[in-house]
Each structure stands twice: as C-alpha cells, then as structure tokens.
C-alpha cells in the first residue's frame, strides 16, 4: 500500500476569475469581488477519476481536516484516511507547510496537492528535493513542472506512480512575482527545484530490446557530451544557464554550479559564479569564442526571457544563435513541444526562431529539431 499525503489549498485559483493574477496576499479582496472556491471541484475530479483507475485500498491518504483534504476525499468515497493536521479557519501558506511537515513525519512517500504555483512553492519549501510532489492544477498560475495538465491527467500519473511505472526527476518550481505583476510587470522567477514522478524515456538498448532510461541517465549523457566539449575547447567560454538540467552538467564538470544563476566556465575551471549582465559582457570581451548552455523551462518552453534575464539582447547578440546549445531530455520535450524566445527584443527573437525550429541536444551528441513559437 502506498502512503500519500493529500492537501488542498481551498483558496487556490480564486483570483483568476475576478482578474487578480493569483491569490497570494489578496484573498479577502478576491472574495469581496465575488470569487468562488474552485479547488475542491478540481480535487474531486482528480479523485473521482483515480477511483476508477485504481482499487480503493491501494493508497492510504494522510490529509488535513475539512476543506484542506478531508472533505473532497470523503465526498469521493475514500475512507482510508488519516487526519494529521487541523488548519486555522482561514487557511494560509503556514497551514500548508505545517501539514506537509506532518505528512512527511508519518512517512508520506509522495505529496499530492491541489493548488497553483504559490502552493507548490510553499510545499517545496518543506520537501526540498527529497519527498516528491504532484500537483492537481487549480491555481491561476501553473508554471512549475509538477502539475498534471488536467485533473484527469494527474489521476493517470498518480495511477502510474502507484503501479510503480514511473521514475523521479527534478523539475523547476517557478512563480510569477505577484506584486510586480499586479503593477503591470511580468516577472517569472525560478524559486527552487522539486522532485516529481515522471514517465521515463524509452531508448533502444539492443536488438529489439528497448529499455526505459531514467531521467538521470539521459541527463548524464547530455552532461558527458558537454563536458567533452569543454575539455576539447579549453579557450572557449561556456556560460551555464539556470535550472536543474544545466545544474546536472555542472555536477558532471565537478564545479560548484548555482541552481538558479548563470555560471561561467573556461577550460574546466569556474571563472564566474551567478554572474549578472555586466559580468557576462566583461567575460565576453576576453573570450574569442563562447557557448551558452540553456534548457527550456518545462511545459512553457521559454529558453530565454524567463528566469535568465541576465541574458540580455546584447549578450545574446554577442554570443550568436549558432553558439546557443539548448539541452533537454526527450521526456522534458514531450511536455514542452514548443520553444519560446522572449528576450524583449522582437527582432532578435525572430532571428532566434530562425526557420521556425531549433536544434536541441537530447542525449550524448544527439539532437533533434523542436518547433519555435513565432
């Protein structure tokens, strides 16, 4: 039997209908504007579908009292429930964190939650990259890589997890800075990485025998290729972008790569850590050749313009399209069928889009073309 933590952020998604981009800090205002809870319905949709897929006693649910979990579980007909947390009447992120701590203490192997990016951030601040999490989409913003596309899809992922068909991978937790957004500024930040269940990539292993390759194996292959390139081109400056895919490259290079920042490497040595735009321009002055290694943000597909604003239009022009290496595992690309460049300079974006596709490195010296949004 699987022990799974189940948590609903009852106010998630309420801001959307009334024109607020999120409910972080403005829930009262949302209610005033007539917002109605939607999270419970989404949670019930997932649970209802899951019930059809998996026999009832395959899972023991650890949850919170009332609207934060107990109610939708019970209304969906589940009674193998253990209530570990009693939230305050008006729930907040602090309740989420406390509940998740209680789930983990009781041995939850996975946290399933219903909410948006804000909820994911709260949960991730407790789980870090230990206990995996899986989201039922219900927020206004769902940029993070932990959400199923729909509640039904989430149920299917959960089924596959319960049947041990999935492996775990690290994905980005992103969120819009909501205060800035309400003031009209679009700013998505990469906050952390979390673990989530993932369908592994199928690779052909030998004659008519195909094996599932864990996400880490593919990342190792990509990293091995880049490490070779770094070693073979000791004079070339390599800029390593943010995110977990590129972080893996740093690990293989045995350098101390920052997760959320951009780092510079030459001849296998770290020559700049968490560099900003002017640092990069200075490094470029001293370099004859430069390669930029970046990975798209899962699902949304932004290669530039989200989470890496240091890579300004000037920086990108100096590096040049042909020196940008976009890396992603095939499984990540499956969720991310279209790449986007949003440097803030429309002419540059269209140059980067080229003929409408970009060559992406998906394995050891292996690439495939991926569509770029115009």
């Amino acid at each position, binding site marked *: 039997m699987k022990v799974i933590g189940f948590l609903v952020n009852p106010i998630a998604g309420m801001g959307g209908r009334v024109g607020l981009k999120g409910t972080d800090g403005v829930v009262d205002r949302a209610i005033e504007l007539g917002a109605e809870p939607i999270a419970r319905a989404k949670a019930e949709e997932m649970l209802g579908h899951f019930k059809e897929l998996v026999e009832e006693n395959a899972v023991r649910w650890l949850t919170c009292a009332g609207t934060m979990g107990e109610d939708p579980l019970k209304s969906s007909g589940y009674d193998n429930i253990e209530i570990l947390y009693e939230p305050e009447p008006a729930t907040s992120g602090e309740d989420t964190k406390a509940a998740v701590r209680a789930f983990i203490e009781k041995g939850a192997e996975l946290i399933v939650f219903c909410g948006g990016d804000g909820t994911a951030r709260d949960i991730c601040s407790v789980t870090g990259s230990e206990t995996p999490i899986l989201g039922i989409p219900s927020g206004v913003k769902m940029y993070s890589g932990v959400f199923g596309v729909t509640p039904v899809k989430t149920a299917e992922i959960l089924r596959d997890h319960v049947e041990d068909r999935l492996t775990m991978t690290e994905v980005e937790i992103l969120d819009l800075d909501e205060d800035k957004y309400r003031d009209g500024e679009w700013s998505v930040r990469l906050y952390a990485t979390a673990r989530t269940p993932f369908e592994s990539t199928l690779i052909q*292993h030998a004659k*008519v025998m195909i094996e599932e390759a864990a996400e880490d194996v593919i990342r190792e292959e990509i990293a091995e290729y880049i490490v070779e390139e770094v070693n073979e081109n000791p004079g070339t400056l390599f800029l390593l972008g943010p995110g977990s895919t590129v972080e893996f490259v740093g690990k293989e290079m045995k350098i101390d790569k920052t997760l959320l920042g951009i780092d510079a490497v030459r001849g296998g040595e770290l020559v700049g850590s968490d560099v900003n735009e002017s640092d990069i321009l200075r490094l470029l002055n001293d370099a004859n050749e430069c390669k930029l290694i970046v990975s798209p943000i899962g699902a949304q597909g932004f290669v530039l313009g989200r989470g890496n604003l240091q890579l300004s239009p000037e920086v990108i022009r100096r590096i040049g399209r042909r020196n940008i290496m976009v890396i992603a595992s095939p499984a990540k690309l499956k969720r991310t069928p279209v790449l986007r460049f949003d440097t803030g300079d429309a002419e540059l974006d269209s140059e980067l889009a080229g*003929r409408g596709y970009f060559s992406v490195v998906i394995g050891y010296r292996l690439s*495939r073309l991926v569509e770029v949004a115009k």
Partner: protein
Amino acid sequence: MRDATGFLREEYEDIVEKGFDWKLRRLEGPSTPVCTVDGKEVIMLCSNNYLSLSNHPKLREAAKKAIDSHGAGSGSVRAIAGNMDLHEEAEDRVARFKGTEASLIYQTGFAANAGLIPQLCGKGDIFISDELNHGSIIDGVRLSKADRAVYAHNDMAECEKVVKEVSEKDYRRILILTDGVFSMDGDVAHMDRIVEIAKQYGAMTYVDDAHGEGVIGPDGRGIGAHFGITGEIDVEMGTFSKAFGVVGGLVAGSEDLKKFAYNKSRTWLLSGSHPPAVAAAQIAAIDVLETEPEHVRRLWENTNYFKKEIQGMGYDTGDSTTPITPVICGESHKAKELSTRLYDEGIFGLPIVFPMVARDKARIRTMMNAGLTREHLDKALGAFESIGKDLKII
C-alpha cells in the same frame, strides 16, 4: 569482501521481476511453416524465414556438398587464411543480384552495422537517423564520436529540415541512416525521397534492409530495386538470416565501399569467416531467388490475403505494407492473452508489448511465410477472429 559475481543473479532477477526476460521457446526440428515448438505442432507466424528457404532442397544440398568439398570450418578470419573461393563467389552473386558494383559479406547483420557504421562517420561528422531505427544501427552509431540528429519516424519533411540545418554547419560528412522495412510496424522507408534529399545536400545514404532483402522489389532484390533506384543508395545493408534462410550480413555498393569496409570493420576483420556450408547455402539462396520467382510471389499472395482478412475483422494493422503485419490489441495484457490462446489453438505469434511499443499499442507481430497454405491461413484467421471477439479487441 566484494561479491564478484552476485550481480549476475541480481540483475537477472530484476529483469524477471519487470517481466522483460526472454523465455526461450524450443524449435524441435527444422524451421518450417508448420513446425514443432515446445512439443506442440504450430502454424509459425513469427519466423523471419519469409520464403521458407532455410529448408529448401537446393540450399540443403549445396550445404552438404560444401562440407564434402571444403570441410566443416574455414580455419581463420578472412583477412588471414579463411578467405575461400565460396566466400568470394557469394559476394559476386550478391552484387549481381543487387545490381551493384560490389558486395561484402559479414558474419551477421549486426556485425555489419556495428562494424561499418562507426567507420563511416567520426569526430566532426554527423549521422541523421530515423527515430525508430533498429538497435544494431543504434549500437553502431554509439561506437562513433560523430554527432547524431534524429527525425520523426518516416517524416521526410522533418528529415529534410534536419539535413538542411546540419548542412549549414561545418560538418565534414553527413550520413542519413534508416531501416528499409521497419521491423515493428512493417512500413517502408521513403528511400527514393531520402536519396533525393541526400544528393541535394551532399550527404551519404545507408539503409538497413534486413526485412526487405528477398521480400520487396522485383524477385526480392530489395529496397533499391523496389524504388527503381538500384545502385543509387551508397550503402545497402541486408542479411542472409531472414528471407534468404541462412545467416550473414551483407553490404552492397561500390567497389570503393567494399575495400574501405573490409579494411576498417573490426567485426569483419576479427571474426572467423563463415563455414563453407553457410557460404554455399548463401549462393544457393540467390540461385533460388533468380530462378524460382514463385516464392516471392506466394509470400505476397499470402501477405495480401492475410492482411485484407485481418483488417476486415476490424483489427488495426498500423501502416504496414509488407509481410510484417502488426495485429494491434491495445493494452499489454490483451496481446499476451491473445498470444497464449492462439498458441493453445496451434498458432505461434509472439506478443510485442510495452516498453518495446507504446502502452496502448501492444500487438501480435505476425510475419508471413510463402510456404503457408490457404488452409493454414484460414485456420489462423479463424482463431484471430474468435479469440479477438472474445477478448473484445474487435
């Protein structure tokens, strides 16, 4: 203390637990259209012996005679002292049959791909490969330091985009690699288009026609002849182990290719050459194809009949246009159940399930045989129909 060999059992047990272990079936007697498998007489629907040549009197006779005249083994690798007249004759016959300048025979098809492919491209070169290529091509590619790019299965528009993109970079050589007949789905590569694209951008072409040799094209001359582009594919690779009914890999192309290939392929240079009986049977197989066109004709009559009937029942057979007809069942357990019950009825068709194919595309992969009669096919079709309905596949 380190357990030196404990992993052997651990890893095997892990494979068994996942259900990915191969359970070997035992063929008792020759590989014939109706044969004995694990003590039970069955109609064979999963052998590669498309033309039933493995048991043809002319091949058997040639093999026996060669033992009398040349002995049981060759004594060496071909590069040193094991290059017999029979080996050279077989290669001349392949070249003539395929309409190419020359040919080279490897110990197996796998040895041809694993030996030749990594020699054709190295550092600074690039392979462009169909995403569903056979494992032996993939292993060949992995032995090289060249870059690789893949295109969606049989998608010629994407293939051209990739070649165009790649041709603008500083690569020395570009090689487009594809299966001829794809072994899981039975569809055929658009080789005419691939050759056109390659010529436009200065790329080489390499086709693994293992399931097309002896099957497609006039008299089974393979994919080049099938598309009317004989001699235009740079490397036509095939095998004697399927329709030809023997064993051995073959590479057909220019004289330059042959000399390059045997001087550089380590699999060829370092493996003992075929026993005389094998080389003689290879020659006899080509004799049969050149003089007895009825085998290929019957294979296609059987294929067309079986495919039409099975589709008529409502089975999905994907994009197959060849004697490989996947009978798609949906979820894995249905394919396994169908296979088990077919076997009970005396029909041998192995299930192909996740992860070899997508979860919802589990199938029985049937392979037609020229030696099956209409009665055999009707018996098999009847079983596919009744069991398929019973399992609610159709």
